[in-house]
């Protein structure tokens, strides 16, 4: 690979914080408003400002398509404007903007043009139109326009912004367009920020850079949060779990001795705990859209995706340098082809939803490559690429050529299940019994299919006999003419036809699931596609055409049928970093079949790439403060948010790179700041609401609601059921039975029921290990705002909606956990745990439950109220016995047969329930436990449990 070099001639560096120069003569100061431009100025204004505006905002409906002129009004030339539209009135009165409808319309007075809020002209833009009309609406000819433009293109930077060198857009107007430097901040090199003063004062530079802004805003900072809030906050942030009461107790003691040392020791412990990796991995899996299935019509399982999930957890726990992490995920197979670990890492390239059903091959292929291009762009570079699939980017310096260059970087990549031996660090616990359960289901489906097939073939034999023809089996007779073979589905009733389809699909599904236990991995290879490509089975072809080389072009409008200019594989040309500064196309990478991704990955992970490190540093910041320094973590472009603290972002990023892209160090740095330890309560809340309503300046610490995963995990911690085992094939918690058995349409059939894992220990694993099915989210997690698995999630939604209350009050899941919590407390009472007095009464039960759930002592009012409630419930539950609910070992499914519209039934085996170990249920415990469980249930529901401060 070409050595990476920073290329200076391509770039005019613009320091941060430079605002646009005043808009000179085009400004809209009131006192200048009446001065009329000279003809030279007016021609310039028209060419550089007004015409581009008209082209963008007006011509699409009033000119571009002569056959379809809205309002019969065309604006392509002065004559059209003078003629006006269907009303017959002129829209342009040269010299008199106020009398010109054109001007009134863009002001949204009278008519509203352009009609979309999105396209509405800014004040500045309407002023251009006004000035132009006031100066007699001069319209220079094309040649004169070109001369004006060419002169302008020579000037790299002027009051309208700067020209950015790229590989070039589809038009010169795009190539030479100007950017507000603040819009392209992310493409600019990292700035060196002077924090020497902070260092000299022994202050954390983070605090220095944060507090500086607070001082400017004259906002007081909140005091430090108390030790209890702090340990809860940092434990959730680093591990996604609550601290135990004992950990809180220990921390309190240490804190009283020396808060700084206690805090540091706490961070060190948490960051080195294996749960750190699980928590960090969850953030990453959100961004890369982890799921165990492929989505689309069939939602086929990606049986080995779990190995990628575990790889991500391992990587965080090992504190793998982030640049290495990037290389492995994008090009692990090229980096170290024989290392299973790096092959597993390429699972990233298989994370998107993808299917082939009912899609032409080329379109399915395009879907895959578009998805990769877009997502690699937004995951690593903070540049969602989809915008420039059809045209040069509207706002960012990314020409559509760059889109297709990056697309081309993936064009030799084919998704496939590849062989990768299991690693000693991978969890293969319980493979054998789990595999047996699947084999049993496969055997059952096969036997049921055989019955229907047998019936069909018996009828076929009879048909051949009746027609005095020799019998041929189903495959052999397929191509025979219709009068020489029995009808399709001969001998089968409509219901049996349905059953045949259902069982065939089941056989495919269970066959696929058995691959979980094979040394396979959802990965990729370089080369031509296999002969049959579908989501069910993707394999390395046994023979490959060595001469195969994909060719790519810019696709006009993103359509396969409209190739424009050919492209070579490459990287984003607007970033300050080139691959080969000597060549004419410094952004190109190899066009060999092998090695494209590795070169791309090296470029992405380069110290000199201005985007990658900023993007991950920002994500880490967000993981602690709820929102990033850039509040649109996947979008660092012009339409994303500007950094609230650009200098802080750059200082952190430079520090991150200089110290080897180590994430744990970055966390340490952030967590040791004073801003992280602030209370969420402001001493001047009224002022805060006025000056900094969104708390962008961080004078207080932002509280947050637990995510779906944190909530479930925390409940399991409180109930004492959480099994800390790490990794392995997906685990299946119990799911609301109605949803678990809910028939779910997939192609040809319905998907099999959700069967929970057999034992409580298997089911009560952390949520990150639960089975993620794109087509069927766990209703508990879904209602708690689990993100859509098909789109990269860069920030969790935490909207509170009423149905969450139903789930947290009434679901079987919460009922069972509350009972487990009650049993735990009761058991601990026997062991006299928790240092609580008295230890033999209901008072103990309440106190201990509160202590476990909230890490504090119940206050007297709570204690009294809950105690009375507990007593009342003890009486209540003696009078109300729960009904016993049995687990079904079979379920009769019903499906509508398409031919007859009749529902038909078939039996699905739920074999896990044949030997199932349930957890305690309302009907297996006594009234006192049910009463205590009512108290526990409330503790789960209360706000205190659900928010982190």
């Amino acid at each position: 690979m070409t050595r990476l070099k920073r290329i200076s001639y391509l770039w005019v560096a613009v320091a941060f914080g430079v605002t646009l120069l005043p808009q000179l003569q085009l400004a809209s100061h009131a006192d200048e408003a009446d001065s009329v431009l000279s003809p030279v100025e007016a021609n310039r204004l028209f060419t550089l400002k007004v015409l581009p505006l008209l082209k963008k905002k007006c011509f699409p409906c009033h000119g571009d398509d002569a056959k379809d002129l809205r309002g019969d009004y065309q604006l392509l030339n002065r004559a059209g404007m003078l003629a006006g539209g269907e009303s017959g009135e002129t829209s342009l009165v040269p010299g008199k903007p106020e009398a010109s409808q054109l001007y009134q319309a863009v002001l949204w007075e009278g008519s509203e043009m352009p009609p979309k809020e999105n396209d509405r002209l800014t004040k500045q833009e309407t002023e251009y139109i006004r000035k132009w009309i006031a100066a007699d609406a001069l319209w220079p000819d094309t040649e004169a326009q070109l001369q004006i433009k060419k002169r302008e293109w020579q000037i790299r930077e002027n009051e309208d912004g700067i020209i950015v060198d790229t590989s070039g857009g589809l038009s010169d107007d795009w190539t030479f367009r100007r950017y507000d430097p603040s819009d392209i901040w992310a493409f600019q090199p990292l700035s060196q920020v002077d924090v020497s003063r902070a260092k000299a004062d022994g202050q954390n530079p983070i605090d220095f850079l944060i507090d500086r802004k607070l001082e400017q805003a004259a906002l007081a900072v909140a005091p430090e949060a108390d030790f209890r809030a702090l340990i809860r906050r940092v434990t959730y942030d680093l591990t996604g779990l609550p601290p135990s009461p004992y950990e809180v107790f220990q921390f309190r003691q240490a804190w009283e001795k020396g808060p700084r040392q206690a805090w540091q020791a706490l961070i060190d412990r948490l960051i080195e705990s294996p749960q750190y990796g699980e928590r960090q991995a969850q953030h990453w899996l959100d961004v890369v859209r982890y799921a165990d299935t492929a989505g689309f019509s069939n939602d086929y399982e990606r049986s080995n995706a779990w190995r990628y999930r575990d790889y991500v957890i391992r990587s965080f726990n090992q504190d793998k340098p982030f640049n290495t992490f990037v290389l492995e995920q994008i090009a692990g197979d090229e980096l170290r082809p024989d290392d299973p670990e790096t092959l597993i890492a390429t699972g990233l390239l298989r994370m998107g939803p993808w299917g082939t059903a009912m899609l032409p091959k080329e379109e399915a292929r395009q879907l895959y490559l578009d998805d990769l291009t877009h997502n690699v762009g937004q995951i690593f570079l903070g540049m969602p690429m989809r915008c420039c699939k059809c045209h040069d980017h509207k706002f960012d310096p990314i020409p559509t050529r760059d889109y297709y260059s990056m697309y081309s970087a993936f064009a030799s990549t084919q998704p496939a299940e590849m062989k990768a031996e299991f690693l000693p660090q991978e969890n293969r616990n319980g493979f054998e019994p789990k595999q047996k359960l699947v084999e049993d289901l496969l055997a059952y489906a096969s036997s049921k299919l055989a019955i229907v097939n047998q019936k069909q073939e018996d009828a076929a034999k009879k048909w051949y006999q009746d027609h005095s023809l020799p019998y041929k089996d189903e495959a052999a007779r397929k191509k025979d003419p219709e009068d020489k073979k029995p009808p399709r589905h001969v001998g089968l009733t409509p219901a049996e036809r349905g059953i045949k389809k259902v069982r065939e699909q089941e056989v495919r599904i269970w066959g696929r699931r058995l691959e979980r236990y094979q040394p396979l991995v959802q990965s990729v290879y370089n080369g031509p596609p296999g002969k049959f490509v579908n989501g069910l089975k993707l394999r390395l072809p046994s023979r490959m055409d060595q001469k195969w080389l994909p060719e790519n072009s810019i696709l006009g409008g993103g359509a396969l049928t409209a190739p424009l200019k050919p492209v070579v594989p490459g990287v984003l040309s607007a970033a300050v970093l080139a691959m080969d500064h000597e060549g004419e196309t410094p952004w190109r990478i190899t066009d060999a079949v092998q090695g494209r991704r590795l070169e791309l990955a090296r470029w992405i992970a380069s110290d000199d790439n201005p985007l990658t490190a900023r993007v991950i540093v920002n994500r880490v910041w967000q993981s602690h403060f709820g929102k990033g320094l850039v509040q649109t973590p996947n979008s660092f472009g012009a339409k994303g948010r500007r950094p609230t603290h650009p200098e802080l972002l750059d200082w952190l990023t430079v520090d991150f790179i200089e110290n080897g892209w180590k994430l744990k160090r970055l966390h340490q740095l952030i967590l040791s700041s004073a801003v992280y330890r602030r209370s969420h309560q402001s001493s001047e809340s009224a002022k805060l609401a006025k000056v900094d309503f969104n708390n962008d300046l961080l004078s207080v610490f932002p509280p947050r609601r637990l995510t779906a995963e944190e909530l479930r995990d925390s409940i399991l911690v409180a109930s004492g059921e959480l099994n800390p085992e790490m990794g392995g094939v997906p685990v299946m918690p119990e799911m609301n039975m109605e949803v678990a058995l809910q028939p779910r349409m997939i192609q040809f059939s319905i998907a099999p029921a959700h069967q929970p894992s057999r034992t409580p220990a298997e089911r009560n694993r952390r949520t990150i290990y639960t089975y993620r099915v794109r087509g069927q989210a766990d209703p508990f997690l879904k209602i708690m705002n689990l993100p859509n698995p098909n789109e990269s999630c860069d920030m969790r939604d935490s909207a509170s909606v009423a149905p969450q209350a139903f789930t947290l009050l009434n679901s079987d899941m919460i009922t069972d956990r509350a009972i487990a919590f009650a049993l735990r407390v009761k058991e601990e009472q026997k062991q006299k745990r928790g240092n609580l007095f008295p230890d033999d009464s209901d008072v103990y039960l309440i106190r201990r439950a509160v202590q476990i759930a909230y890490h504090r002592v119940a206050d007297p009012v709570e204690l009294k109220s809950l105690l009375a409630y507990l007593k009342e419930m003890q009486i209540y539950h003696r009078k109300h016995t729960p009904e016993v609910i049995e687990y079904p070992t079979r379920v009769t499914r019903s499906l509508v047969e398409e031919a007859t519209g009749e529902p038909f039934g078939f039996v699905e085996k739920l074999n896990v329930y044949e030997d199932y170990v349930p957890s305690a249920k309302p009907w297996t415990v006594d009234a006192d436990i049910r009463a205590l469980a009512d108290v526990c249930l409330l503790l789960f529901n209360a706000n205190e449990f659900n928010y982190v401060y």
Partner: protein
Amino acid sequence: MTPLARREFLYGLGSSLGALAMTDLQATEKKATGPLAVKKPMHAPKAKAVIMLVMEGGPSQADTFDPKPKLTELHLKESTRVEGLATGKRFFVGSPFKSRKVGNAGIEMSEPWQFLADPEVADELCVYRGCQAASLNHPEALLHLNTGSRLGGDPGLGSWITYGLGSVNQNFPGYVVMTELALPQAGPANWGNGFLPAYYRGTRLRSSGSPILDLNPPRYKTRVHQRKALDQLEMLNAKHAAKHPQHAELQARMENYELAFRMQMSVPGIVDVDREPKQLQEAYGLNRKETAAFGRQCMMARRMVEEGVRFVQIFAGGWDSHDYLEQGHSSRIASVDQPIAALIKDLKSRGMLEDTLVVWTGEFGRTPDNNYRGGVTAIGRGHNVDAMNMWFAGGGVKRGAVVGATDDIAAKAVEVVHPIRDVHITLLHLLGLDDNKLTYFHAGRYKQLSQFGGELITEIMA
């Protein structure tokens, strides 16, 4: 309201649970604020609510509302049409159904439509034959129809509508979806809130069991039990809120529990069609096996619209007739024909049809020809994105009209041709919303239902 005051309010008026429920409902007739508060439309609306009947699988236009005699002539003759994905030999398929003009307006429909043919119903319909879909595959096409995007992850139609208009009834979701036992392809993504906040997510009312998942506690916990639990919860939350006075979100979450408690009473009441007169139940076909399920849902839809629900969607599957077209389509029609006719008559008799828009559609249309399946002549049709038919009735659309046309074999829309997004824009327009202004900033741009804008189908508008 303080806990004590509310308790007095709840228990002071009566002791039976029924009385309790009444007070619950009255207690909430205060004006809602927040994300679901009623918002003013952008212009004068023609419809207040939409009932959208989605015929999953893709009903065939030639066998429903766009009959083509030419296809009967061509029946089983070889077709050389180039057809998207199809490979191998193809042959034309004539409709197994006769058709006729019905009502005073003379709308054409196939013979299996018996109840819809009633002039009182037929003359309310505005059949639209010019629509074109974009995806040949069921899940993507359904997502396109229901969310405006084929990719999944965008907000459902009802999400946009409740985002734009809020919800009239704060004790009931403003956006309700009913499905068959099996979920449609692409599942809940068809009514997800996408990038809009979760308040605007569609709520699926289940056809059996509890209408909303976990609406009620396990049976051994009574409503009185739940009330007591909520009072304790309020005690805990009030103490917590006192310690965190600046944390505004706490209040909203507390209120959700009270709303949930009220919904436990209001939801079953609203969906309980057994309260309807027997005669009307029979009109909807609740007494017949083939129509009972869909009829019940249609009746529920009417009750919900009465209660202020903005957008009700009912999925009815099984229209994917690649084979056995006659059996397939006639049985499907038989299962929805009577309930739909009853729904329209019922709405009409209550004066609700004027401002309720009923939409009947599939996710795409079907081809005039078919391929050999399993090497045999299969009398059925493939998926077709170039032509599909749908109809509208009620608020703001023409009555007794046929708009748009396909070519002589119903292969392709040729008159008043519009993509699905234009149907969306028109729907919003009729509800008083402007697609271009109903936007939400997400991932770097203002998103809108139609994705990139489009145009109204003025031809179907009254």
